């Protein structure tokens, strides 16, 4: 029996996954807030409670994510891309390209059948290809962020917007609102624009099926529909894509713990 944990110190949320013999037995998440180090402790505690385990039961903890150094209790670290590759291949053994769209950035990883990363690309410089873009646009449209997806699915077409920058896009959205374009079409335009950014990034890497989408934004039906349309292929999504980074890190932790035995 081997129990390990992964912690993903995301820019918006801290996620923890605990795995036992390759099965996920607990997951928990919290907003990172202003004290991510404390949140990390708390999130781990919650995951342990839900798995009815104590800290001593965990053989190895691996941290990942933008704030990786804030999880000082971790035994080791892994890059976000390395965790993505592991998680993608874990959820879907046929996965060869894994896209991760989170709150602040997007990236894509290629992996082999063992979940070993072979290549990767990152879009870390522009928010127009990440979750905060949806958030900002939802605000401009005065709709709930979680309703944006289903709203966009009602649209027949998309209104044209500038996708190169959140700030420009926002002013485009405002003028579309003034022109009384239907909100559904504007919402679809927003997802199309995001999908355009993400797909041009992954195209630089080359799209090898099967393609997996993980990260918090993978839950957004509007974005997923746009991305599928844009890439013209099917995309596999795990049930709880937001935990993918933590799961990947936990898998790495299991491997590292085994190495010490």
């Amino acid at each position, binding site marked *: 029996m081997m129990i390990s944990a992964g912690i993903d110190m995301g820019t918006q949320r801290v996620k923890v996954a605990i795995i036992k013999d390759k099965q996920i037995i607990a997951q928990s998440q919290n907003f990172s807030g202003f004290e991510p180090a404390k949140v990390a402790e708390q999130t781990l505690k919650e995951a342990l409670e839900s798995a009815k385990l104590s800290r001593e039961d965990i053989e190895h903890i691996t941290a990942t994510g933008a704030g990786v150094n804030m999880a000082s209790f971790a035994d080791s670290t892994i890059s976000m891309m390395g965790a993505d590759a592991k998680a993608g291949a874990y959820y879907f053994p046929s996965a060869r390209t894994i896209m991760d769209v989170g709150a602040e950035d997007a990236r894509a990883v290629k992996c082999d059948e063992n979940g070993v990363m072979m290549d*990767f690309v990152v879009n870390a410089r522009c928010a127009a290809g990440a979750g905060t873009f949806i958030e900002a646009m939802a605000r401009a449209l005065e709709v709930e962020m979680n309703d944006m997806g289903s709203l966009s699915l009602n649209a027949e077409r998309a209104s044209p917007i500038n996708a190169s920058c959140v700030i420009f896009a926002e002013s485009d959205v405002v003028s579309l609102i003034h022109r009384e374009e239907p909100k559904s079409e504007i919402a679809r335009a927003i997802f199309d624009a995001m999908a355009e950014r993400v797909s041009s990034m992954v195209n630089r890497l080359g799209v090898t099926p099967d393609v997996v989408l993980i990260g918090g934004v993978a839950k957004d039906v509007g974005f997923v529909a746009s991305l599928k349309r844009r890439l013209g292929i099917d995309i596999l999504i795990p049930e709880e894509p937001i935990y993918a980074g933590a799961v990947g890190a936990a898998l790495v932790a299991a491997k590292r713990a085994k190495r010490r035995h």
Partner: protein
Amino acid sequence: MASKIEKEPKYIPEMAQSEIDELNKSIKAASIKVIEDNIERMKKTWKNRPKAMEYFDEISNLFGKRAKELEEQKAAGKKIIGYSCIFAPIELILAADAIPVRVGSGWYDTAKLGDRIMPVEICPVIRSTVGAKMVSLSPYLELSDAIVIPLTCDGRTKLSEMLSDFKPIWYMNPPRVKDDTHTLDMWKKEILVIKEKIEKLTGNKITRQKLKEAIEKMQQATKAFRRLQELRKGAPVINGRDAMLVNQTSLWDDIERWTQKVNELCDELEKRVEQKDYSSYPDTPRVMITGTPMIWPDSWKVPNLIEESNPQGVVVVDEQCSSDRILYDPVGVDEWNMSDMLNAISERYIMACTCPCFTSEHGNEDRINWIIDRIKEYKVDGVIYYVVRGCILYAMEYARIKKVLDKMGIPVYYLDTEYTREDVGQMKTRVEAFLEMLEARIDI
């Protein structure tokens, strides 16, 4: 027509002397700190760094010993000839008893000053070099009696105009095509023109004997340089950053003294090969850097990241005109007569060069061949393709190089950056992921 243009600074805006002095002081202080910090970091990674490296640390201080020497030699009547890139024929400068010194800038802080003249899209090497001139920061640039500027890229072409407000500029026109007799003839004429200019400035005739001595001096430098390069082929006895520093100091140091010091370093390192006294663990992923020149001191950002990363990487070779390309090729002379020597110089500076300013039917195959050969010789695990934004030629050639490397099964990562320290965090993420990937591949 020319008479209609008033003689006044063409680009550089007027600045109050007090502002110039203040900026000079603060940027210089910051730069000395960066230099010291870089050396500290190199020492930290290489626990048993040999004493022979201390000489290069000293020469690496751009405001230190070497600047003082140049000042003294200039006062004694010697001419100092600056050059912006390694197309400049060093042998001719040495043969006229002048002192060659590279003047391109790696200062991040002065790039911001260049922004007052140029949009940020322009290559930061250019913005930084002009910025350095605006506040008289670079002792080498200030001391230069003339500056050789090979017009290799658009940035350098306009750089020559901007600097011509301050210094006599000697343009050199390298052809964009190598494998054509008429372009080679043209380049040979450029070499002859530069020779005349050097003679006129120094008042020294470049004689057969003088030129032979200069060529031999540089051949000795190449020999020492290659000796060091050879040592990087095995398990690491010198880290990449340290070798890069040694290589780059050749651009401003006294070349004879430099040669001697490199040989002393190699004596020590060759012993260490025997003793298996390594600078990094032998199984550290072996990285090659290619792309935009990495100019000391601020551009040590990237090799610092690679060699301090977790997992760590070691730069075993690069394909950069700021390091492993500088002295690799000797001038190969058949007969020691004037015309043969000049032919040999002309050929060496163009045929051996792998700059992306060249084009050919096969897509700059000299650069590709260089990279392929070095990957094999140095057992490279992965390539970092380094580009500063605005460096169009290197950025464009990436797709060509990637195609070749993909075929070889060698991972390559396009690492783009700016003359800024602000992106270190996210660059670290990318470099670490790349090295992790290389490590995982080595494990297989």
